[in-house]
């Protein structure tokens, strides 16, 4: 949770709009515009919402109107999907400026991006593409993370990827790569448990082993999501990070294990296509909240001990 505590004051004026409550220990959901009337109708509750930054990079109109209403009542997580941090080419300065302006305008509780790339030369592929894990890519990605953090004047959380292939030139494990970025940039991590399960299945390793090695002390948010299933060339199970259905049982189990070990880290249920009615998505967040609440006590007492 150190990533959460590290956030410096990016608003020297001290102007913080309500709500001022923290997202520690809370479950949230993706915010989908179609859910706005239902969310407003039921009144304020605990929780938080996450938005894809790119959807709010227009000048005005209904998207900003909706997000302002959400931000008035709830903490916000600003989740970038198109910075192409994992790519070799320089970050798009215009995009970085738009991202900075959004972070300034909406004062999100957390800001995150992906260990992936999506733009090559001038083409935007609209997918989170994989990268080799080498000293050269580690340096480049760390420079990019630094650049984003300098622009928004606060640390970001970097999300572990879901992948389907490996690069022949990779020379280190994903874990060493992620640890390397954290060490060089001071960024926090967004632990996507669906991605862990998808990648572990696709690459034939143990999700639990991966999680045992994961630097949990830097995790500021957890993602849960649904996945789809295909087969690879050998006829083995190949999982697709589709965000189009409920969280899988196996991912809920990983979540229980992680929360029992590391305490109630803010957790978000992602659902990006085949979007259900609000009560269905809300119920998924409710299920996550129950698990967080069950493991709330040990961490609270831990904090008390730490203060003594």
């Amino acid at each position, binding site marked *: 949770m150190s990533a959460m505590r590290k956030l410096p004051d990016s608003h020297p004026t001290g102007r913080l709009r309500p709500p001022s409550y923290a997202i520690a220990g809370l479950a949230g959901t993706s915010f989908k515009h179609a859910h706005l009337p239902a969310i407003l109708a039921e009144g304020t509750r605990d929780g938080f919402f996450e938005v894809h930054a790119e959807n709010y990079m227009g000048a005005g109109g209904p998207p900003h109107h909706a997000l302002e209403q959400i931000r008035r009542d709830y903490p916000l997580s600003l989740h970038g999907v198109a910075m192409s941090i994992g790519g070799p080419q320089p970050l798009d300065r215009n995009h970085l400026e738009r991202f900075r302006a959004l972070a300034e305008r909406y004062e999100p509780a957390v800001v995150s991006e992906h260990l992936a790339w999506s733009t090559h030369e001038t083409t935007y*592929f609209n997918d989170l593409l994989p990268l080799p894990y080498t000293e050269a890519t580690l340096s480049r990605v760390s420079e990019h993370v630094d650049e984003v953090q300098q622009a928004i004047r606060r640390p970001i959380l970097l999300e572990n990827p879901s992948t389907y292939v490996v690069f022949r*030139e990779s020379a280190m494990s994903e874990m060493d790569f992620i640890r390397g970025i954290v060490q060089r940039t001071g960024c926090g991590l967004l632990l996507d448990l669906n991605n862990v399960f998808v990648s572990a299945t696709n690459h034939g390793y143990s999700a639990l082993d991966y999680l045992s090695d994961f630097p949990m002390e830097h995790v500021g948010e957890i993602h849960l999501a649904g996945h789809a299933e295909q087969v690879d060339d050998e006829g083995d199970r190949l999982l697709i990070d589709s965000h189009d259905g409920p969280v899988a049982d196996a991912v809920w189990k990983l979540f229980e294990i992680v929360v029992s070990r590391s305490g109630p880290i803010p957790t978000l249920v992602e659902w990006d296509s085949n979007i259900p009615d609000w009560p269905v998505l809300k119920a998924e967040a409710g299920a996550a909240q129950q698990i967080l609440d069950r493991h709330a006590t040990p961490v609270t007492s831990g904090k008390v001990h730490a203060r003594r």
Partner: protein
Amino acid sequence: MLVDERIGRRDGGRLSFAVAFSPALLDPQSETPAAVTGPNEKAAVRRYNVYRNNVTVSLIDALAAIFPATQRITGVEFFRAMARFHVRATPPTSPLLFDYGRDFPGFIERYEYARSMPWLADVARIERAWLDAYHAADMDTLRPEALASIPPERLSDVFFVPHPATRIVCSEFPAVSIFVPNRSEGPVDPIVAVAPQDALITRPGLEVVVRHLPPGGAIFLACLISGRTLGQAVSAAFEASTAFDLPANIAGMIEAGVFTAIDSGDP
């Protein structure tokens, strides 16, 4: 730094992975890049195809979201086949997908299988303009009193400041009459209009409004939007159509929220 160097093409290959990985994403004829593999030397054909599929399908979905009336007219299968060609030929160049599809109406116009629907491209142009209006900056619209406060002898010299949402789409077809029912949820009755229709797209509040402009209206507004005076715009409109109705057009443009302010031309 040279572009090639920045994207890793000339650094001895240490950062050339995107150069190797990218080209086949939008080219189904290309082989799986040799730079990738499955774990433990498993094959990577289907695995790489996941990325191919994600890229292509998500971009087709993006076009379907921007052009829903176009899709409703053609049917989903036709639309997606047409969109697939366009996505492969003209992928987005911006990470903002709401900016995508600006070349799609022109593509539709040239698309062989859409020739029986010559009005389809104009419907798509209205939809593209609709999304621009949706995301445009929020600004107040011109109040009727603002015009009334100008002395009559100065009226022909004033300029109007266009609202950021305002768009005009001229069509040789009844594009608005085709667009409106196909963009709504309800059933589409047979479309009886045959006369050409120019569309005015505005967003005076939060809701985008598409109107059908009266004769001469498009040229009148286009002149004002491009910074010509009211007098010049009126002349151009009368030249385009003897049926041009000035009071009705001025009332209409104020009600639609085409402009945000008057510039009286004073220094």
